[in-house]
């Protein structure tokens, strides 16, 4: 190859420069939230028939409408367990970071805690 050594060397430098951001951020950006397995299991047990992590906003919207509009303040889930509808009870005390850690990771900023008292750091 004519001037092969130079071409290959500059290619290596180019690829190196181009991938610096990937190496620089390796392992940082993808560090997922630390979620307690027991809390996650409790969260899923609220309604076992659906995937709570994916569908809890829809369920909570239903709860909200039933609670405020119809005065129905108890949810009976698919296993017959009664749950008091309350964001405050659900989110736990202010030190409980279960909701916040996941929402922060996925960059979801629900407006619930603009009014409802919630965990530390929920309100931005």
């Amino acid at each position, binding site marked *: 190859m004519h001037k092969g050594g130079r071409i290959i060397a500059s290619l290596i430098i180019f690829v190196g420069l181009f991938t610096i951001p990937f190496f620089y951020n390796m392992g940082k950006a993808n560090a997922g939230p630390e979620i307690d397995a027991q809390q996650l299991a409790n969260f899923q047990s609220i*309604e*076992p*028939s659906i995937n709570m992590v994916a569908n809890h906003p829809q369920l909570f919207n239903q709860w*909200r409408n*039933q609670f*405020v*509009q*119809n*005065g*129905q*303040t*108890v*949810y*009976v*889930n*698919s*296993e*017959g367990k*009664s749950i008091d509808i309350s964001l*405050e009870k659900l989110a736990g005390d202010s030190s409980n970071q279960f909701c916040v850690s996941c929402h922060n990771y996925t960059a979801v900023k629900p407006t619930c805690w*603009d*009014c*409802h*008292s919630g965990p530390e750091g929920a309100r931005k």
Partner: protein
Amino acid sequence: MSVNRRQFLKRAGALTALGLGGSFVLTGIRGKIADAASQTPSYQKQKQGLVAKHWAMVVDMSKFKTEEDIERVIQSCDTIHNIPDFGNKKDEIKWIWKDDFEHTFTESKNEYLTENFKELPFMIMCNHCENPPCVKACPTGATFKRADDGIVMMDYHRCIGCRFCMGACPFGARSFNYRDPKPHIKTINPDFPTRTIGVVEKCTFCVERLEKGLKPACVEASKGGLIFGDLDDTNSEVRKIISSKFTIRRKSELGTQPSVYYLVGGEESV
């Protein structure tokens, strides 16, 4: 073995019928199993909650003698409902407040009223009207009348802050959050939500307490000055008072049918 056209069609038809029929049976069975394993989720009311057909209140004016009687009642509401104090009249948020006779019963005012009457402070709150004009004005359904107990409720989630309801309410019972209320609440009660900037709020007859089996906070704090009960129940205290004594309502000529009755001069008859 050769198959002629007729035989081929027959067999193909039979197989198709079998396949379709079989799948119907299978889904049917699966559905049955799923039904047995779980029930459809449902919603209920709290068991200990107070129920009524038509909540109403009687304000017994003879029980409000001193400034302290009135302040105690207002404070009881303000603290549990996270009502902010902005320190000026313009932005004031009020759920229950006091005013004089002239401004409470504008239509009955006359210049020869006794001094005593002119200075009497009246407790005022949302009247929870039977024909609430605020509900008709609301474009989003954020304010509505509960069909089962007649309470005029607010859904802050739905309020867009247009303030039509404030214009529609003849009693000034609604307040608007022109500013973020959170920094102006002395101590936040974590069990009750605050409101945000841009929503309207008002008295809700303490629905959150009724569902726990408790009477409204102001009724509890009034030591008998406010009487709360079911107007549809002929044996309730409110019904007995209203049907046996002379009570007045604010601006009854407007036809909104307020549910708050004022027992004026109750002293002499008791």
